């Protein structure tokens, strides 16, 4: 089922990509033809080809960027989780990446400084807030 869904997503994006690239190629051809027509003094045709070419290039670029953004959004982000380990006796603190089996108040190895058992005091993720233009707070 998972495989089906992935192939469906891939199929859609391949199809869209094909259309985008065909449009892009035709638009670029139109631009080249526009230059050609202009050099032959056919300004009317050159004008239209230029218009078609620019519209085609901008539209296909826009759709390409949009579909890339959609693909980027199709990911489940897993933020880094950190585990804070502390020695309750001497206050020695160590922060490391979370590993399966960690939980708050779990007793771990002995402290490097005072040989007392260390415990996990916090497990959390840090989120970087996006910059905002203005705030009403």
């Amino acid at each position, binding site marked *: 089922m998972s495989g089906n869904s992935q192939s469906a997503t891939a199929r859609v994006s391949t199809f869209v990509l094909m259309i985008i690239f065909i449009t892009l190629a035709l638009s670029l051809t139109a631009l080249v033809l526009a230059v050609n027509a202009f050099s032959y003094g056919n300004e009317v045709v050159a004008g239209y080809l230029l218009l078609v070419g620019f519209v085609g290039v901008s539209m296909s670029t826009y759709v390409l960027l949009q579909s890339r953004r959609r693909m980027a959004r199709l990911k*489940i982000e*897993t933020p880094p989780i950190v585990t804070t380990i502390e020695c309750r006796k001497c206050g020695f603190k160590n922060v490391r990446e979370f590993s399966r089996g960690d*939980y*708050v*108040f779990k007793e771990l190895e002995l402290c490097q400084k005072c040989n007392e058992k260390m415990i996990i005091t916090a497990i959390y*993720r840090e989120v970087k807030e996006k910059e905002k233009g203005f705030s009403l707070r």
Partner: protein
Amino acid sequence: MNEVLIELAGMSVLQNQFLQFPGGDSLTQILSILFYGVFIVFLFYGQRIQMYVMLREVEGSLYKLKYIKDEGRKIAIETIKEIGKPQADPTPRVDRFLEYFTIPPQSMDPAGIVWKLDNILDVRDTRLKDEVKLMAPATDEPQGFNLENTLEAAMALNYIYKVIRHFYLLGKKTLSLYIIMQIQMILPMVMREAEAYASALKAFAYGQPIGDGAGALVAAKLMHGAETRKIQKDCIVGQVPIEGRVAYVIKAEGPGGNVGKPGDAIKTIIEENEGKISTVVMIDAGLKLEGEGVGEVAEGIGAAIGGPGVDQFKIEESTLKYRIPINAVVIKEDIGDAVSPMRKEISDAVDKAIERVKSVILERTKEGDKVVIVGVGNTIGIGQ
């Protein structure tokens, strides 16, 4: 719609009067006809075009929901295989589990509905635990709880996907603007919830503390080092001296993903003390409004507990019997933070919440009094 028409008419006039394209009158006429054509198309088919735009938007979100749902299912199956060591492939059983439903009790005659709902939730809980045990026989109790939470998150994602798909297909079939419109309007909120469940999946699978566990973490910090005992159901209580008072600190038993039944636990403690409890202080994660900061601590009165309402009802009943005041301290967060791995701001807010609890006790009780402190929430990744 009117704005579009006015704009088109304006463009047509502009084109007629000022934009003289090279090629003379015939070309201007062709372009005029083209503009009128567009004008007429928008006049008659504007709504339909709008509908197709909305359908396309819903379709895009549906693809994303399908991806998230399939990922959820994959993570659940992989976790079962990894820690449950099943003899057979758990996939068919997981698929059956994802379609599991619960029928709420009939509410035409609402008297006694809480106990009926309580019974149904108990049966559901037992059934889910049995299913998890069959799927993953090698798991211990905390791992079983975590697996159950993982499967429930996958189940929620499956349900969200199916509901959105239902409205999308129904809208497409009937071409009713209103069916499509209502789903398109709530889509941003639905997507936020789905993304929150998606990030919860890995947290549950790995046993990481989640934002909802803020209350449980407060209770854990208060009772850490004290002697604890089990109390019904799936809860734990520790007797701790705080500011010259005797505090019964209650939380769900960790570190497995578990919310326990704080309603029953509070009732037991109150009955054990024959109602001689000065105050009950409940700490929970509270949904913040947009604009409020994550990890802000607020104080109020009432039973701070979410869920279907059974536990809130029981707490209110028990405290009413002996006229015990209930105080609440909440740590603000949004729905995404509540089910995803705990943010640093929430973890840091726990100490502030403890200070607030202590100040409530100092202000509202006398030395030597007995108080009940309840840390509400999922205790996944939090011991005691």
